[in-house]
């Protein structure tokens, strides 16, 4: 029994990595495939940025169990950190990502300390307040240039100017790194501590998990990943403005992406990011000027997913797959 289970699990793990590998390989080949135009790569870039931001949210909300409605704030922190360092120090995109991640991680750490004892609905409103706070700061403190915004030069990576395809590959590489990072993290002792805090704070503390340290660590790692996505958002359109980054709808969309895909599953943000970023474009393929219909479809789809697969699409599909297998296996016997 156990051996079968272990074997099954090993197989699933293998499959997961195989799936990820195929996915990335496909993503690498994609822009070069015949019939694929640059705008499709741009669409994919948008999805990549959403996936990455949702990965950040999933570290906190999925693996550590702290619901955040404020990751738009970290998106802004990452975006502005990189934008300012590009404008005043002339850093390139790669350096920008490190700057954005570091700044975001620092702010996340501080926020984690402030919200040390919050959970549930209280944490949600606290993080939402943080997003608004960031919005007000970038809107009013002169260095951020408010809604007028900061225009950035064309993107450079180690001295070479990159176009939209180059940007796509850069974003893809960054997504590869964050995916690797998240997958290592959640399998490590630190990831176990996060999940232990999520499942039972008491038992975690009794097992020696330092609640303060790991909560703030989860906050800063989560913020860092979303911060990198913010850097990409900023450089993708070469422009940051409080009109864009002070918007709470990013925060909400990232949370939706995390929930839809499955909050504590590696593939979850991929499905969720696709859902949030690509759904409007997808609907447009079938309906001309969907407008409000897009809203209705989005809401309906969201509720449908929650009712049918409360643990997210990925988990739901795995369960469906197992059920089907059991059913088919039963039939042949």
């Amino acid at each position, binding site marked *: 029994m156990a051996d079968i289970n272990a074997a099954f699990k090993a197989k699933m793990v293998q499959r997961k990595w195989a799936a990820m590998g195929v996915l990335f390989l496909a993503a690498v080949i994609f822009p070069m495939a015949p*019939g694929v135009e640059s*705008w499709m790569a741009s*669409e994919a870039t948008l999805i990549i940025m959403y996936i990455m931001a949702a990965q950040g949210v999933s570290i906190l909300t999925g693996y550590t169990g702290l619901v955040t409605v404020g990751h738009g704030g970290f998106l802004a922190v990452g975006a502005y950190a990189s934008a300012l360092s590009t404008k005043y120090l002339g850093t390139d995109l790669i350096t920008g990502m490190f700057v954005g991640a570091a700044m975001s991680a620092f702010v996340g750490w501080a926020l984690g300390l402030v919200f040390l004892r919050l959970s549930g609905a209280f944490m949600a409103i606290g993080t939402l307040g943080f997003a608004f706070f960031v919005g007000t700061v970038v809107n009013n403190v002169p260095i951020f240039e408010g809604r007028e915004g900061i225009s950035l030069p064309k993107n450079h990576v180690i001295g070479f100017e990159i176009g939209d395809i180059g940007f796509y590959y850069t974003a893809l590489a960054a997504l590869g790194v964050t995916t690797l990072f998240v997958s290592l993290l959640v399998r490590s002792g630190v990831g176990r501590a996060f999940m232990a805090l999520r499942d039972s704070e008491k038992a975690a503390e009794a097992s020696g998990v330092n609640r303060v340290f790991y909560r703030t660590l989860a906050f800063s790692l989560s913020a860092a990943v979303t911060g990198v996505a913010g850097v990409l958002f900023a450089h993708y359109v*070469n422009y940051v*403005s409080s009109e864009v980054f002070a918007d709470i709808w990013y925060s909400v969309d990232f949370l939706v992406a995390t929930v839809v895909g499955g909050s504590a599953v590696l593939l979850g943000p991929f499905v969720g990011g696709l859902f949030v970023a690509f759904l409007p474009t997808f609907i447009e393929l079938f309906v001309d*000027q969907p407008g409000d219909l897009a809203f209705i479809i989005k809401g309906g789809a969201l509720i449908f997913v929650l009712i049918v697969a409360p643990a997210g699409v990925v988990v739901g599909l795995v369960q469906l797959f197992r059920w089907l297998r059991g059913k088919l296996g039963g039939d042949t016997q």
Partner: protein
Amino acid sequence: MRRSYKSFITAAGVGVLSLAAFGAQAANGPGVTDKEILICSYQPMTGKVSSYFRMGKGADAWFKHVNANGGINGRMIKYKMVDDKYEPARTKNIVKRFVERDKCFAIVAPLGSAPTKAVIDYIVEKGIPLIGAGTGAAKNVFYKSRTVFPLYPPYDKEGTDLVRFTKEVFGAKKIGVIYQNDASGKTHLKGIEVGLKQYGIKMVASEGYEPKEVDLSSQVIKMKNANVDAMICSCAPEPAAKVYTERAKLGLKVPVVNVFFGKSPKVPELAGQAAVEGVYFATIFREWDDPNEHIQKAKGILTKYYPEEQHDAVHLWGFTGAQVFSEAIKRMGSGDITRARLLDTLEGIDNWKGSVVPVVDIGEVGPGEEAIKHLLVPSMNYVVYKGGKFQPFTPPWMK
């Protein structure tokens, strides 16, 4: 399953072939066939500023009207609008799609400062004419390119003019400013500061507000407490209505002039006529109830194609770009429709009185020069709301 896959392949193949055939027509510009001209625009159909989608509806109504009357020189105008939710990253993708997939001939009457800022580099780089975008942000208006045709003057110039207005019409010495805390309001503020120096006036109070703010009482109270002689209101219609309601409530009787994008029948409708009585507005268009034939025609068209809409200035923004574009195509006659010819033709529109704008007079932009000379609506007029309607008002210096 298998069959749908096959049909998909077939469809894709047909698509690729037809695209190839499309590109083969060398003479006309992209998006132009003998039957049709495809032009595009991005609009905030949903999301936080969706009420500005009125601009797109205005342009759309005009093109529908054109098509219903047989198009222009035998060509229909296909006007494609896509929702960008006012998110620049989406705008960028949408514009790329316009250019690469849809092969749009030009981008006409799109909306938004932030979205346009994010895509203008790309649009110019690809040589796509950008006609009548709804933005007064400096980057978009002063862009050094011959392919950009801005709609209206930059906000800072308007701000300066409004200061002059308070001095020469109201005789004000110390003024107060209420502004929307965004790019438009802050640019107005910049222009106002220039005007203050120029006309020797003091600004004793300046209060911002957030576009969605529920209650604007504290801002108006501050105006009252600062004892201002006159107010400049850089407010969109809904907030303007709130400001005038509060102003009437507090009995603040000082004269007010509002920027042009707040000039809308919405304001008296929302705030009540009494509260708006005597408020001056800058404006760039004729009034909806102006007996002028072009306005009346536009009114009919909008009512026909968007019967639910209440007539607003933002619709006219859309009309302007659409009408100027149609005029240019008309003037190009039966020859090849190319982008280069479009630019030449547009620059050749001088002293044209055939649209909702009193006069369209497009200047020429040489290489390396700023697009400001391309303004579709270069001049600003004023109106005053009296006795239940907007009435033309001519300040002393324009007489």
